[in-house]
């Protein structure tokens, strides 16, 4: 039960590790950004999960006495989503410029070209 009860948090950890692994392991700069996106998105699930209260509804005041979910983490994560969008778009813009300058977006080929430059 304990494990199932923490289902959201398990998903958070698995997604986070998947994303992190992609960032480290892939050589393709776009795939790295995809990994980074998954990594950031996993944190959204963490925040959204912790604001949710079992049986809680959206925090709109109605006459009946009900349990409300905590809206603050959800609002916070809206900001983080914006940050994530900005990061991804800036990253993609950089990749476009790298492609123009190097003719490739593979990290090892870029590294090889840089090594030739410094010789």
């Amino acid at each position: 039960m304990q494990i199932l009860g923490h289902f959201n948090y398990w998903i958070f950890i698995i997604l986070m590790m998947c994303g992190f692994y992609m960032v480290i392991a892939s050589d393709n700069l776009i795939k790295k950004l995809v990994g980074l996106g998954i990594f950031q998105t996993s944190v959204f699930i963490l925040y959204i999960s912790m604001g949710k209260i079992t049986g809680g509804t959206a925090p709109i005041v109605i006459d009946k006495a009900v349990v409300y979910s905590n809206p603050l983490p959800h609002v916070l994560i809206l900001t983080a989503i914006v940050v994530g969008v900005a990061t991804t778009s800036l990253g993609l813009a950089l990749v476009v410029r790298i492609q123009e300058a190097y003719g490739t977006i593979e990290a090892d080929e870029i590294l090889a070209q840089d090594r030739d430059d410094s010789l």
Partner: protein
Amino acid sequence: MIAHLPALQVVIPLVSAPLCALLPAGRPAWLAAMTASWLAFLIAALLLYQVLAHGPISYLMGGWPVPWGIEYRVDALNAYMLLIVAAIGAIVASFGRTVVEQRLSLPVNKHPWFYTAYLLCLTGLLGITVTGDAFNVFVFLEISALSSYALISVGRDRRALVAAYQYLVMGTVGATFILIGIGLLYVMTGTLNMGDLAARLPAVSGTRTVRAAFAFLTVGTAIKLALFPLHLWLPNAYAYAPSPVAAFLAATATKVAIYVMLRFFFTVFGVQFSFETMQLDKILLPLSLVGIVSASLVAIFQTNVKRMLAYSSVAQIGYMMLGVSLVSVAGLTASISHLFNHALIKGSLFMALGCVSYRVGAARLERMAGVGRSMPWTMGAFVIGGLSLIGVPLTAGFVSKWYLIVGALEKGWWPVAVLVLATSLLAVVYIWRVVEVAYFKPAPEGLKVREAPLALLIPTWALALANLYFGLDTSLNAGVARLAAQGLLGGAP
């Protein structure tokens, strides 16, 4: 007006940033950026004066009471950091316009965007420092980080693009870790206000969630401040960024990350939890020592002088973290005063290099042969910065090294004190390599190099002279640092 200074500190550069983008390229955009950054400096100076005279300032954003609203809280440490960031921001913004713009890989009509990014970066760094809200720290951290990636990528060398990309990946991982840490703290305490967090954390500090939050925040800030071995993004980013950007980031960005770390460890988690329960000092001490030695050694073998200074920055960050790991007033005073002194040192060195590379084309060692005679003022500023980096008496660098050694001896850590002295000698070696080439190698035949224009020399010398001034009058750099250190350790403010 005076009551709203903490808000204006952030709002002025924030509002000026989009304004710059709307102004025509050339003088107007630059003037707007310079005015905004000097105004920010003026506000920071007023804030520091107020804090020293009347104690900490608490400013409620929009009048919402804490802990619901966002509080801007300025105490001795904040005010001191604001002054560093704003002062460097203003001086770097005054660095000759035409020269700076010439070195960007942007078409002329896009130049105003450079100033927009610069002001946004300044906004972010000032915001991190002034705010008393944990989530606000993350937001400003990302504002400053995203704009600094953009600033680095406009360097003329194509490697600047790759450096900016690498920094983007590392920086985002670091910021996301900080975000997770803040989220875990919120779930345990239900608050984001730093003062409120500090009050509520002891009750739950035994839980695994708080420990995980502590770990995430430690690693996140360690990436941001480029603590060895998480410094890999730094050397390339500083080496290929345009010189003024390198001067600005080297002097402020990592310093502000160190501030975030100090704030979280000392104010939010508390000394007891951070250093007795979690024993963080036992991790920071070896990492900072290894960082100092290895980065200094690597710096000796660089032929790109900007890269050399970047590695030297990693070593200097090691000194600052060494002071933190001493967990004493003397150690913290050393760290905090080194934040100030190193900002002056690296600011002046990178700006002097900016002058050199403007005249000789690149900041590579072999290109600098003989520039000591053809550019005496520029190299004079470089030598003063270098002496201060080494920690020669009568320079600012000496003050922080002195406190660091006093702190180590207080603890009875003789080997650490000896190591600090020995690694200063490594700094002598790498600074000497530049001095030797610049002064004692003959200039190549037929190459006429002139002194840098005054528009570059004046800001460079302003920082170089500050290195000398604050080596003699230590009431600001060491005096306020001591106050801030006592505040962090919970003593009388």
